[in-house]
């Protein structure tokens, strides 16, 4: 590819120097996208470093180092994926989808229970959560099925097909972890929206969901057949009345809110007692945003949110730049997945969303999530590179 490329406009007299980035095929990567992802990773490591300085109870002290290693692995994975034409994934949709479902199912067999829910596989150096990578796999395969079946069947049949394909893994994940399954659901809906499913169909799906949630959360427990696990129900209801259970889930959420609120405009720095003394629960994972907010105040929290906004905007932009409709759908899925997780997690940290155990992408400590998210960024980069390549000349096609 390098040798066949011709000089870009305005510099026709000289051949460009071939730099390292170019040789790695990275020159056409979206700089802002990389910047936001790396920026968030750095924010994460800095925050983990600060909170790990004072160890409370059982927390291991090597979070920042491990997170940095996960980040490096993630960056390598991102670069590797960026160099692949994402359109290949469309062809592999069946294989990807099969792998997705199989990996989720292995959890039922070999899963390790952590913090009340079983969603991890114990690997030699690593506890792997297939559901994290599954988000990307679902996006790639579902988008592929949409393109593939775009002309088969009536509109209603297509809608039902997409829905069924999306809900199958969503349902399986729901049995393991409520928060992750909500992300799967959001991905499914986002791809359907981008795919042009009729608004009336989407409205019907929305209403069905509301009715279903009503039955699960209200009617079934009343009838004596709770569908949700105890800890799931507790988290959801404690959001509605946080003071009802001072020692439990409502207490945690309240402590996170107090931490965020006490940060003020510029943060409390080393005086950040809420996170330093361990009042903020899961401060390296689900509630890392509250830690940022307490320590660095509105300035720091707004910086993190801005980096997410930048990331979202760059992903959204790729929906229109993409060389093909598959790229549009994949970008929609990734943008929505990240957006949904950011909103639910930050909302949970700020006390406006229930506790659902959704980590903050690129910020929360955790190898599976970090690497999987960087892989998503890699796919976005691939969409970007491909769109630039497409603009450069017809013969490349």
């Amino acid at each position, binding site marked *: 590819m390098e040798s066949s490329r011709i000089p870009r406009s305005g510099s*026709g007299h000289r051949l460009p120097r071939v730099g390292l980035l170019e040789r790695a095929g990275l020159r056409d990567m979206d700089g802002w996208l990389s910047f936001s992802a790396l920026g968030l990773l750095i924010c994460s490591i800095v925050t983990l470093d600060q909170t790990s300085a004072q160890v409370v109870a059982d927390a291991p002290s090597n979070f920042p180092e491990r997170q940095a290693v996960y980040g490096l692995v993630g960056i390598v994975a991102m670069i590797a994926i960026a160099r692949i034409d994402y359109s290949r994934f469309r062809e592999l949709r069946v294989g990807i989808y099969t792998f997705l479902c199989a990996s989720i199912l292995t959890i039922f067999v070999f899963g390790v229970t952590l913090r009340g829910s079983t969603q991890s596989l114990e690997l030699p150096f690593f506890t792997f959560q297939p559901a994290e990578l599954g988000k990307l796999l679902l996006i790639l395969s579902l988008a592929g099925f949409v393109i593939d079946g775009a002309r088969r069947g009536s509109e209603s049949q297509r809608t039902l097909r997409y829905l069924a394909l999306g809900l199958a893994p969503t349902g399986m994940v729901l049995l393991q972890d409520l928060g992750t399954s909500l992300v799967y659901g959001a991905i499914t809906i986002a791809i359907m929206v981008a795919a042009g499913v009729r608004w009336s169909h989407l409205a019907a799906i929305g209403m069905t969901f509301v009715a279903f949630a009503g039955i699960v959360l209200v009617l079934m427990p009343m009838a004596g057949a709770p569908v949700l696990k105890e800890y799931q129900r507790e988290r959801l209801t404690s959001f509605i009345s946080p003071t009802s259970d001072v020692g439990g889930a409502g207490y945690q959420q309240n402590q996170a809110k107090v931490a965020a*609120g006490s940060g003020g405009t510029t943060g409390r720095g080393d005086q950040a*007692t809420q996170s330093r003394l361990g009042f903020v629960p899961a401060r390296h994972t689900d509630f890392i945003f509250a830690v940022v907010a307490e320590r660095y105040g509105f300035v720091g929290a707004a910086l993190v949110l801005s980096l997410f906004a930048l990331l979202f905007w760059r992903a959204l932009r790729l929906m229109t730049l993409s060389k093909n409709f598959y790229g549009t759908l994949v970008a929609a899925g990734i943008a929505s997945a990240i957006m949904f997780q950011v909103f639910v997690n*930050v909302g949970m940290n700020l006390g406006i969303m229930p506790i659902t155990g959704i980590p903050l992408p690129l910020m929360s400590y955790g190898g599976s999530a970090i690497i999987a998210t960087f892989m998503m960024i890699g796919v976005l980069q691939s969409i970007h590179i491909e769109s630039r390549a497409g603009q450069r000349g017809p013969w490349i096609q």
Partner: protein
Amino acid sequence: MRIEPVFTKPKHRKGTALRVAVIGGLGLALFVILFFRLWSLQVVTADRYLAEANDNRTREITVRAPRGRILDREGNVLVDNRTSMALELDPLQIPSDAAERRKRFAAIGKVLDRDLRWVRNRYRDELKSNPPGSPITLIRDVDDDIVFYLQENQARYPEVQINRVFVRRYPQGIRAAHLLGSVGEVTAEDLEAERNQDLEPGDTLGKAGVEQTYDDTLRGESGQTRVQVDSLGQVKGELQSKNPVPGNSLKLTLDPDVQSAGEAALTSFGLPGAFVTMDIESGEILGLASNPTIDPSIFTRPLSQADADRLWDEDQGAPMFNRAIGGGYPVGSVYKPITAVAGLDAGAITPSTMIQDNGKIEISDQIFTNAGSQAHGPVDLRRALEVSSDVYFYLLGAEMNGTNKLQHWSREFGIGESTGIDLPGEASGLLPTPDWRNELFAEGETDRPWAIGDNVQLAIGQGDLQADPLQMAVAYAALGNGGMIVKPHMALQAEDSAGRILEEYEPEVSRTIDLDPGARQTILEGLHDAAQAPDGTSYGVFGGFPVPVAGKTGTAERPPNGDQSWYIVLAPYPDPRIVTAVTVEQGGFGSDTAAPIALQILSAYFDKQAKPVSGGSGNFE
């Protein structure tokens, strides 16, 4: 030169732009929500959360101050403190779920070797009286091995706290229980009082006796240690602390010899009764007791409701009732000196007026008799007091009916009003007046209006009159000191924990009454004869006492109970320094029980014993 791309962007499907806009718009909206929430939380309401965060990380540990000691006037310790391990339950840690709570209570009960019901009842009783949120003291004086076990297994009993608390100790045993009073944990009601502003739940407070009156002096100030804790409640560092200030000691006017003699003498008869010994010039209480008494140390342990009820049970003599300051009794002949003062002032008699005492007298169709209908012959005032002629005073009462003189002088001597002693629970008694009875009659509360008989009865301390030993002691003190109505008091001085005097409680005089010296002289002579002349009513008791005294017996009818025995004595005669008033319920004649008790008290005070005497007139009283 610019090479224009030949390839154009792929044509997306119709409506894709709209779909992108929808997803983008939704994302934008969500970001706006997050930014707005962040701004409102961190910029608008930050102060509130900062306060909450600061509150979160600190715990205030109250370091209780030892309460001040209580001493008698010679410096002997009546009350001090010991430390005790108290087992407390944190109500916030008690599960609200009934089944869970039962399990916890059963587990705690097992450690204490009690059953679930005991723990539950104690918890419920205490919870009712305690201010909300304050720790519930289950038991005090927990055995060491239980303390160690609970401390080692803290994690299994999160609701249990073992605290070292100060508990009152009574090195002299049960002495002076009624006037010392007790301390107890503050109740929600206590906390509302102005004077208790600096108290908090779990603190102790004087609940009776001088512990209550001088609570401010004895209380001390709790110290505070502010510590930083982490989310597990583990202490991470000390922030600041305020040392507790021990309470000040209170030295009482109590004379240990008088007090122990009085208590022993009262107890020896085994009848309900009381005594007061007071300095007649200063109003200092040298001794005061009520029988049956209580062991003040019972209040250092949590008291069950049944035990508390028993302390007030009439059938058991209501041990908690302080008869010396709260008993409303007819006083009988000990009232006669007051009647005499009134009669002399009213001009009904002079000291030399002679009256023929035939043992009985008819006043407005009603026969009034002497005790045992004994005739004393012609008696003047001095003789009437010596032999305790009722007829003499019946006549005075009849004479003064309608003049209000008897009521006036009774009031002057403090009958019918509380003396203002520095002890809680003082009664004011009752002085019958025509207005009082007529008003009751008008309201239908009684069957008849005031009659002359009422005044006749009042003249010898009978009828509706109600007074307690302290009131009578104050009245006799006025007689002894020439007309000063003193305010009796228990507190001599307050000392700090190092023994420096902080405050001396000055004697107070409520008022001075216009007592005719001649009248006083005659009356004291009569009382001296009554005690120590052969015809005197208490000659048999005081005749052989080497210190000259002036004392009067009283035998009050108190149906349906047996006669109430009274004795009030001023000593030494003729310039008395102290007064002792004794009463014994169902004690018979004044000379039977009350006078012997008074003699033992005076023996202890003057450190002199009475020689036995024989003879005397054998007058009834």
